[in-house]
């Protein structure tokens, strides 16, 4: 414990500095507009806040629905102990995405407009609704953790009773908007570079979200096992690693089949900025992790799995940034580099996320192993209470 203290203070100091800059950037953004606080322009209207904060934020929060589906729908109950941190990450992630959106929208006070001004032809409209509904679902999935902390039994029981439909709703909503983030770019066949534009964008976004969700869960579990001094769930991490491998293989096949069958693969062999970014991206997100995960030595070792996950997550983060930024530059005729204030706001958002996550794991029953296994049979009983007596008769 003593060893880690100075390290924490160091990071805290950095975080405070970032927050101070963030406050100034916030002032610039809201009092002097997007022009003063970003490098966006008429030629390049979407930048880091959309590319990273929104597209990556939602992708990295995908662990929530992936694990909820595994634990409660596929009945892989052994993953229940890491379900809570995944739901916490997802809930936090979505709140932060909404926060980031308030910076990016020109008129943030109109963010609620899609609720009453319907425009179902717009992918953005659909994403907006899904994110809104799913954040509510996540709040309800997360609520028992807080209620437990204060020993409020009654509402917990109510939430448990509706937990299964709620989880299914969450998975459906996630499927929709994770893929729709890709559909956002279907309307720009002439603008997005051919290495990234494909009618398969929604499918690819969905698959990569699942892989990243699992990767994030491995990442978090390992990190928090170190920080909070609890045993690492090694068998669970291994299971996630196998899940990641399968998802990555499917993703790789879909991605390259599409590139080859459409002939767009030829752009990968033209020597330019885009093809370099493409190869770095697919190496990080597909080739390196797949090769590593195929090696039993890596697959069975939690630490090398942890490193593989980080590589893969970087690869998929790069994928989103390539779609949102790299791939749009050529047609726009500009090179976009985020301004300091864009970067600082993004760092603030990440920092706030990590801080709240750390605090939550400290004060709420997130990693308490006593409570997690307890909760599982409780839910199973609640859900199967009906059939059991019937069968017994």
């Amino acid at each position: 414990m003593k060893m880690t203290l100075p390290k924490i203070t160091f990071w805290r100091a950095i975080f405070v500095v970032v927050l101070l800059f963030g406050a100034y950037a916030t002032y610039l953004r809201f009092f002097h507009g997007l022009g003063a606080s970003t490098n966006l322009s008429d030629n390049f209207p979407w930048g880091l806040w959309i590319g990273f904060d929104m597209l990556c934020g939602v992708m990295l929060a995908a662990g929530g629905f992936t694990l909820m589906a595994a634990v409660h729908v596929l009945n892989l109950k052994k993953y229940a102990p890491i379900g809570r941190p995944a739901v916490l990450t997802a809930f936090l992630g979505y709140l932060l995405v909404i926060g980031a959106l308030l910076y990016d929208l020109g008129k943030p006070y109109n963010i609620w407009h899609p609720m009453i001004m319907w425009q179902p032809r717009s992918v953005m409209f659909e994403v907006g609704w899904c994110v809104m509904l799913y954040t509510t679902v996540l709040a309800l999935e997360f609520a028992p953790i807080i209620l437990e902390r204060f020993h409020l039994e009654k509402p917990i029981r109510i939430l448990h009773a509706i937990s299964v439909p709620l989880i299914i709703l969450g998975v459906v909503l996630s499927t929709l908007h994770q893929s729709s983030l890709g559909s956002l770019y279907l309307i720009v066949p002439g603008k997005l570079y051919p290495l990234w534009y494909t009618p398969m964008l929604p499918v690819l976004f969905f698959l990569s979200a699942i892989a990243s969700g699992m990767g994030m869960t491995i990442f978090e579990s390992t990190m928090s096992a170190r920080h909070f001094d609890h045993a690492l769930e090694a068998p669970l991490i291994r299971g996630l690693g196998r899940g990641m491998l399968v998802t990555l293989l499917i993703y790789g096949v879909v991605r390259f089949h599409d590139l080859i069958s459409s002939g767009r693969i030829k752009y990968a062999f033209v020597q330019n900025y885009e093809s370099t970014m493409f190869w770095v991206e697919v190496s990080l997100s597909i080739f390196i992790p797949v090769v590593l995960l195929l090696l039993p030595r890596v697959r069975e070792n939690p630490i090398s799995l942890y490193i593989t996950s980080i590589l893969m997550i970087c690869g998929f983060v790069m994928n989103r940034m390539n779609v949102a930024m790299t791939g749009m530059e050529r047609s726009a005729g500009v090179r976009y580099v985020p301004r300091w204030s864009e970067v600082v706001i993004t760092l603030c958002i990440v920092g706030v996320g990590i801080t709240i996550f750390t605090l939550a794991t400290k004060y709420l029953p997130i990693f308490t192993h006593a409570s997690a296994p307890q909760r599982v049979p409780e839910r199973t009983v609640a859900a199967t209470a009906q059939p059991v007596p019937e069968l017994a008769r």
Partner: protein
Amino acid sequence: MSKGILYDATLCIGCLECERACAKENHLPYTETLEKQKRTNEYKFTYVAAHENEKYMRRMCMHCEDPACASVCPVGALEKTKLGPVVYDASKCMGCRYCMIGCPFGIPKYEWSKAIPTVKKCILCHERVEAGKQTACAEACPTGATLFGERSALLAEGRKRLQENPTNYVNHIYGEKEVGGTSVMMLSSVPFEQFDLKPFQPQPLPELTGRVLAKIPQIVSLSATMLGGIYWITNRREAVERVEKTRERSQKDEK
């Protein structure tokens, strides 16, 4: 019913009267610097691009028949009216700038320097058009290069000009079919691509996203049913096992 503009580049003399009239009509400043800018921006909704040998091309919002900008807008702030103009309601807009991403012609522009910005683009003088008048630019044009009228009549006029003077023109009416047709159409003697008017498919862009959005009800009902089914199977197996175990135990107890 639907109105439009036919711009004939061979008649254009590059006098910029349309730019001036547009600025006046929309209460935009028209300074020397702005006059030199050959692009649309928050202060300039139309411009006349010059090519060598005194060839010109006027650019403005095309007022697409099925506009990408309106289809992507999550709140319906942009809308294609029956009369032709694609109009904008700033009070609905939430400033996501998806319209700027979606427009294939790069037309909507943003007020980057304002704390509370809005989208800026040509709205085909929709108030004048509703009142039965022609657009300010068409009224100001001294040579008739910018012609306002019924889209169908303009199209017929364009075809006639191509037929009567085939050597004068590139044999194409830009905007007749591009992205599903546009209310603003052009004739030119210089290939359109040289003015960055790209060759678009006749398929309206919103169909690309529409195809996917149309699948949503299917995805929802299918995935919900599947998940429910999987849940039922996986959890029932467990319930059965548990019951059997209790049975075994009670049988043992009996023995």
